Structure formats: structure tokens, C-alpha cells
């Protein structure tokens, strides 16, 4: 079976800037795929290339086995949920949702029935006659989702769909999007700069940096086994240990990732069990974050972040502490990038 979306060596330049730089990527049908990266990393450009708002300067894109070179957005079986929703202000909620059907020439009765179902699906039943200006941010988000899904797209694109929502609503929508995607079986491709969101929602994550994909894999893969310093740092802000330090503390002489939450903080007299590595240092900052506390510890020249349950440490600023972690928690990475 052909891939839902396939990028073959795709580049897109804006003047001197390479927004997408030789991107090769396969997205399988039915996947919930996340494109993760900092702003300006090319993830949104790749989404726009799938939608057809941008055309590649080099390379090819296929959607379900069909080359879409030069195919305009209105001829693609792909729909988008826009970052700011882009709901039409001169139409009611119902008219917004039925817009795609209206364009295709569907009859009044069909439009109303389908819009009604779509609104029920996103938990806004009976909202057809409201004006979009009367809706809250979360409700607009749902209308945008209904407006895209009502067309039965083969691929649904979501551009930072939850960025404008507050934390509580965002967590709720994450759950709902996941459920919706499972029920519908449609391929979802979504762009985010929030690593937590990407890891919790997606089946697979592509991490972008400077127009390139630096790693693709399952959430566990990219989190547990980062292949580069960039990924280690960007996904879950890992400690990146220099080769010499890693070699001296139970690892190999390569750049090494060590997750803050794998590190225990104890007194300098604490025993180091078998299979564990340790380092002694001085606490230089304590950052209370509710459930956890993040401590920065200087070990010689290396600054190491440790994340411990809030109640599990009594360390104070300037205290000498012993950091202890299981040796397998250290992940040697490729190259020095």
C-alpha cells in the first residue's frame, strides 16, 4: 500500500532561506504524525507543502501514491485546521462547517445534515446558527476541526492547533483529538513546537531543525534515544554531557544524553549502588515547579540539571550534593552535532 504522504528530497527556499532543505519523509496511512521543532525550523513549511499553499523548488511530494506537483490546494483531498482557525466572520457556524460542501455543490438538506453531524462529533451540537464571534477559543477550534473533517479528507493537517488554548483546555483537546483520530482512522499530520504535545499525541514524531528532519521515530525513540545533541536538548531538555565527562562517569567518550528525571540527588556521603554512576557538585539553582523540583548542579565545569519529586530533596542553594543515576540512562549520541 502506498504511503499517505511521501516527501522525496523536497526543498523549498524563500530567497536565501532554506525553509525545507532536502526533506525525505514517509507518513503511513492512519498515522497520527507530529512535526516538532522550534519556530523557523521548517515544520510549518512542510505542512503547507502538503496542503498545496507552497510548491517545492526541488523534489516531489506524493499523497496516497499520487504526485501532487503543481496541484493547487483546492484540488487536493487534504484539509487543514489553521493556527488561528481562519473561520469566516461573515458566515454562521453552520455555514462555516458546510462551506466545503457548498463549494462542491451539495444540496441544502445534505449540507445541513452533514454540518449537524460534524458539529455533534466535535461536541458542539446545536451551534449551527451562532456567529463565530460569539464563540470561545476552544469552541472556534472545534468548529475549525468540524469544517475540515466534514469534507472527509484523506489527510488532516493541523497547524499548531492547540497553541492558542489555555493549559486545561489544551489537555482536554489533546485527548479528544487522539480519540477522534482513532475513531476516524484518518491520517493526521500536526505541527507543534510543544514537545509534550507531540510526545503525548503522536504515533510518530519528526523533529525539525533548520529546514531538515534530524530524527524520526516513535515518541519513546526520540525521547529515550536521541541521536543528536539538538534532539536531546529540544525534546525534554536533556543534559548533554561532553565526551570526556561521559567517559569519566560510567559512559563512553561520546556526546551523551542524560535525562534530568533519571538523576537522584543525595548527600555526598550516599552509597553508589552497583550499575550506577555518580558525580559530586554544588547546587547553583533550585526551581520549584509543583510536582517536581529542578536543581542545577555544577560538577566542575559541567552544569547538570536534575529533576526530583518535590518532596524528595532537602538540598539548598550552595549545598554540596551527590548526583546518582543508572548507567543505562546515559545515551551516547552520533557525531558531535
Amino acid at each position: 500500500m502506498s504511503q499517505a504522504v511521501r516527501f522525496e528530497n523536497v526543498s523549498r527556499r524563500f530567497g536565501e532561506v532554506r525553509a525545507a532543505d532536502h526533506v525525505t519523509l514517509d507518513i503511513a496511512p492512519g498515522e497520527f504524525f507530529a512535526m516538532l521543532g522550534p519556530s523557523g525550523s521548517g515544520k510549518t513549511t512542510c505542512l503547507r507543502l502538503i496542503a498545496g499553499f507552497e510548491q517545492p523548488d526541488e523534489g516531489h511530494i506524493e499523497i496516497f501514491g499520487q504526485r501532487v506537483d503543481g496541484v493547487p490546494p483546492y484540488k487536493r483531498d487534504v484539509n487543514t485546521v489553521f493556527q488561528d482557525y481562519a473561520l469566516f466572520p461573515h458566515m454562521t457556524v453552520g455555514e462555516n462547517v458546510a462551506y466545503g460542501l457548498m463549494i462542491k455543490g451539495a444540496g441544502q438538506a445534505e449540507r445541513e445534515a452533514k454540518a449537524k453531524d460534524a458539529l455533534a462529533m466535535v461536541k458542539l451540537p446545536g451551534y449551527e446558527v451562532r456567529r463565530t464571534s460569539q464563540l470561545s477559543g476552544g469552541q472556534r477550534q472545534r468548529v475549525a476541526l468540524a469544517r475540515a473533517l466534514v469534507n472527509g479528507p484523506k489527510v488532516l493537517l493541523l497547524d499548531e492547533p492547540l497553541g492558542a488554548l489555555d493549559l486545561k483546555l489544551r489537555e482536554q483537546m489533546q485527548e479528544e483529538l487522539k480519540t477522534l483520530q482513532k475513531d476516524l482512522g484518518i491520517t493526521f499530520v500536526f505541527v507543534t513546537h510543544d514537545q509534550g504535545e507531540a510526545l503525548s499525541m503522536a504515533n510518530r514524531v519528526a523533529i525539525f531543525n533548520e529546514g531538515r528532519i534530524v530524527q524520526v521515530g516513535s515518541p519513546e525513540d526520540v525521547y529515550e534515544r536521541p541521536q543528536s545533541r539538538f534532539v536531546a536538548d529540544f525534546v525534554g531538555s536533556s543534559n548533554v554531557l561532553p565526551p570526556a565527562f561521559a567517559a569519566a562517569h560510567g559512559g563512553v567518550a561520546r556526546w551523551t544524553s542524560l535525562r534530568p528525571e533519571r538523576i537522584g540527588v543525595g548527600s555526598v556521603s550516599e552509597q553508589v549502588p552497583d550499575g550506577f554512576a555518580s558525580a559530586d557538585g554544588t547546587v547553583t539553582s533550585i526551581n520549584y515547579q509543583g510536582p517536581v523540583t529542578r536543581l542545577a548542579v555544577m560538577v566542575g565545569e559541567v552544569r547538570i540539571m536534575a529533576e526530583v519529586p518535590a518532596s524528595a530533596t532537602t538540598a539548598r542553594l550552595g549545598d554540596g550534593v551527590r548526583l546518582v543515576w543508572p548507567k543505562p540512562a546515559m545515551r551516547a549520541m552520533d557525531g558531535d552535532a
Partner: protein
Amino acid sequence: MSAASTRPLGDGVLTRISDYFFANPKTFTLLLLIPPLLWIGIVYVGSLFALLLQSFYSLDDFSGLVVREFTLSTYAQLLEEANIQVILRTLTMAALVTIACAIIAFPIAYYAARYARGWTKALFYLAVMMPLWSSYLVKVYAWKLILAKEGILTWMASSLHLMWLLDGMLALPIIGGPSLSFSYIGTFLVFVYIWIPFMILPIQAALERVPAAYLEASADLGAEPRQTFWTVIFPLALPGIVAGSIFTFSLTLGDYIIPQIVGNSRLMIGQAVYTLQGTAGNIPLAAAFTVVPMLIMAVYLWVAKRMGAFDVL
């Protein structure tokens, strides 16, 4: 009090006034509004009311004096064949000028709103506004020369061997005439030229508020550019078009200089008012004529509102 938590209160008059207004923002707003409200209330609405009153008086045919008694006879006079002709002629001209302005202005406004950036935008504003900086009379006389029989348009037509076209246009009944500067075609052209900035700017302002994401969303949902234009761009630009048309329509309805200088001898509403209040001294009928454009505009706005032209505002 060793450490004051506030700055020491000044005892200057200005400081006290500031403090008072800060504590009483409504009083301040009221104070700001009184002068313009007085101006609008007395000078503007008052004179309009006086005008309305005049239209219910009548002119004594023998003495030529205004009879200050309530009567509808002036309005009856307004509905006579010749006067109705004046009204219909002006109305048709205003409608055609408005439509032409809208059609010409839209692409210009669209370009300015969507594509012009930096210096092209500055150039756009300059090009649209500059004609407004020079005298209206100078521009109209310039057009009279351009349109005259010996003018540049005739010269161009003959150089391009298009005299047949020009002659054909001038030979048309009603809108033709001895030369462009003595025909309705000429009046129409000058009206369109003079009022078009008033159409471009509101449309541009309306289109400026249509984010590119709406157009992308429309395309994403399957709409071809033509469909996007009619279902998204046009409805969102409509308040701007209506605002512009209020200018072009009402300005054409009331103008008496352009038809006087460029055009034939048949009167427009503005000229009728000018003649009636001047030499004829028939202030009541002049007033009744003036009420006509106001009524027309009121009806126009009501219809536009009913059609939902202001729903997006």
C-alpha cells in the same frame, strides 16, 4: 510619615484639574464632547431642520415672495414632469458613476491591500491622494480641455485612426453630443475621475482586514479562486464598497459644478438648486430639491443594511 507611598500631591491648579478628571473620567468625556455636539446640534442639524422647514413653504407667483405657511404645494411642484426628469437624470448619472467607480477601484484596492508593501504602498497612497490635493476647479477645467473638440482625446483618436469610434460614441442618442465636453459621456468621465479616490480608500481599508488565511482556508476547502472571490473576498469587501458608494453616489447627486462645466445644458439636481435659490429666488423649491438626495441616501442605506452589507462590521 517617613516613607511616603505616593508622590506628594501638587497644589498647582493644573495638577488639581488633572486629578479631578482622573477620578471622574465621565465628566472629562462629556467636557470633550460638548463643543462638537454643539456644532453638530446647532450648525449642522439646525440648518438641516431650517432647510426642511423651508421646503414646506411656498413661493407666491405674483409677488415672488416666500409665503411662510405650511403647505405641500412645493412638493407637488417637485413632482411635475420637468423636475422629475431632473431627479431621474441625476439619479441615473450617480448610479452609473458609482458602479463604474466600484469596478475600476476594486482591482486597485485589492492590489494595494494584498500585494503592495513598503514603497509600492507609499506610491499607491500618493497616487490615490495626490489628485485630492489640487483644486477641484482646476481639475474639472483641465478635463474640459482634454475632452474638447480640439483637445488631446480627439487628437489621439484621429492619430490612431479611431475617429469613427469617437464619432460613433458622440452620435449616440442622449449620451452623445457635439463633443465629449458637451455630452453626458464627458460628465460621466469627469465624475468618475474626481470621485474615485473616495471609492478606492474604503475598499482598500476593508480588504486590508481580510487575512490571507481566509483565502487559504477557502482554497483548502475546495474553492477555486473565482469561488473564493464571490464567497469570501467580495462579501468581506462589501462594507467598504457600500461606504465608498455612499461617497460617490451622494457627491454626484449634489454636485453642480461638473455638469455646469462639462456636459450639456440639461440640469442636474445640484444645478437646479443653484438656479432656484439664486436668480429665481425660489428657496422653497430649492429646499425641496435638496431633500431628494437625502431621502434617496436614506433608502439606499436601509436597503444595504437589509441586504446584510454591514453584518461583518
